[in-house]
């Protein structure tokens, strides 16, 4: 019982916080206490507590309110509490010092709304109410992602996000309505026992997949994540961390499953063995991409003078939440068994067969090895630091192999860095290249630009979207501003109605 009541209390705190956006500190205090309460509710639900259910006579949209907190929603509440709590802390400096007051206030309002609606989605157990909360989440996330809407790119990204959200919501409306038609009620119950509902899965996959950014439904992801403030992108993507800080534990568990089926010589290994190889290849490509992004953004010397003068290191308040999330990853790597125990109650909700799954013995060993390796890393880093401190006082220009006056612009660009790996996929990606070759003994100008079109948005969708836009433009021209046309439509309409009536009379 307690977990659910705590969750409702958390929702209340977040709702109150919306009223306090004018006072940043009060809002932050209220919001953070709401997030902490949400975290407590999630942990209580995960801690094998009894399922909490609350049905009320109060009807919203004609459907009685039905809230439910089980271990699965508890797990997601915990994740939501972590990320939503870290976000405002990260943004507090930007919102209080750099952003205009109105923008900051809007940011606080929509942040609260997004978290409130997401919590409601996790707690509601009625299809119609989930749809309403989902819609609230989509709208507030749009407003949050377009906080800096004075920039054209932000507005364009926002429209794309909104369009994708609409499509997702359409699929979800179809899903919940068909579900209600088949089960006789909007109330959600266990669907595992109803195999006839399986075809509806595809609608849910499109609806939720669009928001989750699953390929090929990810069209809104690249532009929205790039243009939205970083903490908003983190909230939208639910980022809690990345390898290698998590010690590849999650990847290890997936790969172990694939490997065990190969070792057992099961028929399924005909799929799992190639899948494992493909997973490794994609992992190596991810490493290359990650290194590229990090190096271009953070490493080496700043390429242009304007960036050098305006960009500064973040305040501790901006770094602390990121460090806290990174620490979470390190904890998962060091204590994978504890993370396993935390997740198992949620897995039981998904499939009762998975009740009381004990962590595999190898996971225990892996945790110990990770701790030993981490300790060794710390020790060698300390030795390295001591060496640098005692013998690394000399500073010099980066070695440029004989070049006397290197400049920051001579560093490798991201395109060049990725050119080897991307060249293998040219047949698939079809990059657009623009050259202006250097000419003559004293070339004045040279240029090289390469751009890879987004495969879904800029290739696959171009044709269908052009068709829809063409049809819409044609329909719009037919009904826009010409009285002669309207009279013609009226006459045609009357003729059609007369024809129907005459046909009925004749029969």
């Amino acid at each position: 019982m307690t977990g659910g009541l705590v969750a409702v209390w958390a929702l209340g705190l977040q709702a109150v916080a919306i009223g306090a956006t004018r006072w940043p500190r009060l809002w932050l205090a209220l919001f953070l206490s709401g997030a902490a309460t949400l975290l407590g509710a999630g942990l209580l639900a995960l801690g094998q507590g009894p399922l909490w259910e609350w049905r009320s006579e109060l009807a919203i949209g004609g459907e009685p309110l039905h809230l439910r907190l089980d271990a699965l929603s508890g797990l997601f509440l915990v994740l939501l509490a972590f990320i939503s709590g870290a976000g405002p802390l990260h943004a507090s400096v930007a919102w209080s010092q750099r952003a205009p007051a109105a923008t900051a206030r809007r940011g606080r309002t929509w942040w609260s709304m997004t978290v409130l609606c997401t919590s409601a989605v996790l707690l509601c157990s009625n299809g119609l109410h989930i749809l309403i909360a989902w819609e609230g989440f989509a709208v507030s996330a749009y407003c949050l992602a377009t906080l800096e809407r004075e920039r054209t790119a932000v507005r364009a990204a926002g429209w794309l996000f909104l369009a994708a959200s609409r499509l997702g919501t359409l699929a979800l409306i179809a899903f919940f309505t068909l579900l209600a038609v088949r089960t006789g009620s909007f109330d959600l119950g266990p669907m595992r026992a109803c195999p006839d509902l399986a075809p509806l899965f595809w609608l849910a996959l499109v609806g939720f997949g669009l928001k989750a950014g699953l390929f090929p439904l990810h069209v809104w992801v690249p532009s929205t994540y790039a243009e939205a403030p970083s903490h908003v992108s983190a909230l939208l993507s639910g980022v809690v961390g990345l390898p290698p800080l998590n010690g590849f534990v999650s990847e290890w568990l997936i790969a172990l499953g694939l490997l065990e089926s190969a070792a057992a010589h099961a028929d399924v290994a005909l799929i799992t063995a190639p899948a494992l190889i493909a997973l490794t290849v994609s992992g190596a490509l991810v490493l290359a991409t990650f290194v590229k992004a990090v190096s271009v953004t953070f490493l080496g010397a700043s390429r242009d003078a304007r960036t050098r003068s305006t960009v500064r290191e973040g305040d501790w308040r901006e770094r602390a939440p990121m460090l806290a999330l990174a620490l979470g990853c390190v904890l998962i790597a060091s204590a994978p068994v504890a993370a396993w125990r935390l997740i198992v109650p949620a897995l039981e909700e998904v499939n009762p067969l998975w009740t009381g799954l004990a962590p595999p013995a190898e996971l225990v060993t892996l945790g110990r090895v990770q701790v030993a390796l981490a300790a060794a890393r710390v020790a060698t880093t300390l030795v390295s630091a001591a060496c640098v401190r005692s013998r690394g006082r000399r500073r010099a220009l980066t070695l440029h192999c004989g070049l006397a006056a290197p400049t920051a612009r001579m560093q490798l660009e991201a395109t060049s860095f990725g050119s080897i790996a991307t060249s293998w996929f040219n047949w698939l990606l079809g990059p657009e290249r623009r050259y202006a070759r250097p000419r003559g003994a004293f070339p004045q100008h040279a240029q090289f630009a390469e751009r890879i079109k987004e495969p879904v948005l800029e290739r696959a969708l171009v044709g269908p979207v052009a068709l829809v836009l063409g049809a819409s433009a044609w329909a719009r021209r037919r009904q826009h501003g010409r009285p002669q046309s309207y009279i013609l439509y009226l006459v045609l309409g009357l003729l059609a109605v007369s024809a129907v009536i005459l046909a009925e009379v004749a029969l």
Partner: protein
Amino acid sequence: MSRLLHALVSLVLLLGLAPLLPGIVGRVKALVAGRRGPPLGQLYFDLARLWRKDIVLSTVVSPGFWIGPAVAWVAVLGAALLVPIQPLGAVISFPGDMLLFVSLLALARFATVWAALETGSAFEGLGASREVSFAVLSEAALVTALVALCVQSGATSLEAMLTPTSGAAGVLLAAGLFLVLLAENCRIPFDDPATHLELTMIHEVMVLDHSGPLLATILHGAAVKLMCFTALLVSAVLPTQRLDGWLAALAWFGGVLSVTVAIGLVESFMARSSFRRVPLLLTTAFLLCFFALLVAWNEGGA
């Protein structure tokens, strides 16, 4: 032998003997070329000299520059501890440890590349780009070889899966793993560790800016990695587990020596391939391992 003593002996063997391998390769190359060549223990002298030297840091680097080599060294050592040394066996062994082996090698690569990119040098960027790109193919070949071993033995731990078989699978696996060894350790024909042309380097160009103890860490780490891959190849191909005690140790050391000499011979008789041909060679390595996997699957099913 107690676990602690076993771990200590393995550590000493790994850390102590690893720098000998590049010395053997160098000596083989020198003998083939009709020279006397540097002493076998040249790398030991180099490491001792570098450890005493000062460090020069670039003006643009952050702490990642000197944390990178330390992290990479530990990762490579961790990976090496998973590979069995006969007759002692592996220091760490548990089901699924081959996945940790692959991820540790990836982490080492990540740390080295990060440290290289700290400098902002275009040359080091080129080397880093080549390193991470070619790693896509070499990792695929390595994992395919390990999956083949896994299918062949029915085990998921590195120590248990290294049960050599005769026949086609063994030959294919040996050839594939030898190519992976050459690629992962930046040897000819993939890379030339002795070249003086920065534009044609992969690994060497990434560490141009490192000096003193940092460079010593990197060079020692590279030697441990070479030892690790040599041990992996020997254990995958040579059935030393069937021998006892000293005989197994002798056979294993003989195997390691043979592979090292083979590397030296390859370096003596081949030139470095052009970069356009490197993916082709790595694809060949992948295909060899893949055919080994198919043969292992077929034999396992029979």
